[in-house]
């Protein structure tokens, strides 16, 4: 399995927002979406990837990009995680069926959790850029997302 490649249409998927409503391909329309796949809520790193992206969120927004964190945790766990991190980045849950969206995007680790990956999808629903970290322990820098935005 490998992360969906740039130039391909985003696969069909359904994720759950924090309020329980769905987030699907229809919600990609008209915006540049960056899906930030991460293995587990509450896994221990000092400065979390989401905290880092939060710090430059206004610059992502200025370039028209909206970020979402995606994991297989329940919405309850993701909401608690978001609160604990103190970030505003919305979380999307791939809890049930577990990992279905991750599998569709090619980022489901054999262990049943998301790889640490980034997928940028354009307003027309096409994958513009994707990246998977060499291992879940390696956090992708914000600079990689800015590079991808600049290359559109």
């Amino acid at each position: 399995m490998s992360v969906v490649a740039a130039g391909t249409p985003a696969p069909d998927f359904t994720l759950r927002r924090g309020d329980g409503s769905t987030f699907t391909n229809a919600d990609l329309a008209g915006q540049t979406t960056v899906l930030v796949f991460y293995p587990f809520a509450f896994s221990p790193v000092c400065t979390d990837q989401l905290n880092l992206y939060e710090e430059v969120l206004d610059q992502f927004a200025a370039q028209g990009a909206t970020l979402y964190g995606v994991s297989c945790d329940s919405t309850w766990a993701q909401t608690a995680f978001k609160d604990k991190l103190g970030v505003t980045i919305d979380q999307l849950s791939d809890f049930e069926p577990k990992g279905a969206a991750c599998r569709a995007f090619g980022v489901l680790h054999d262990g049943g959790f998301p790889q640490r990956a980034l997928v940028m999808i354009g307003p027309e629903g096409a994958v513009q850029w994707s990246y998977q970290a060499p291992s879940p322990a390696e956090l992708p820098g914000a600079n990689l997302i800015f590079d991808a935005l600049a290359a559109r």
Partner: protein
Amino acid sequence: MSDLGSAPLPSLAVDDHVTGSAEPRAIVYADYECPYCAVLQGRLTDHGAAWAFRHFPVRSKHPRAWAAACAAEAAGLQGRFWAMHALLYGDQARLEDPHLWERARRLGLDLERFDADRRSDAVAARVRRDFESGIRAGVVTTPTVFVDGVAHAGVPDPSVIERL
């Protein structure tokens, strides 16, 4: 707004904060509220390493890190950067404004000037400059130590510190 796409790590500038007697081979991106950074600070000091410090405050994780960084820069404008740096790491649980003022008093700083400077656009730009250079170089966590240009995320092995 600055371009935050990938760019090489900037080499040492004349106003970078450098300590130690030798030519520094390490550039550390850190913040004053991060406990791992405090551990690194201790090890670098114990070893007597030569190194440079750059600010990398991530506010959602460390809410007082930005204010502490500005306090260090303001102290630096009165010639006491490294003294304030040491005092900040010396008590990471006390980084609210009254604690920053107390440290400034202990260092004999002009308090009015310290307070004006730490809230100034110039100091904010200085801290932001360090932070953005880190983003462009791919820094994702604190501390990140660049040794001869190679990044080490987290507190490096003792073998790395011994070489500095």
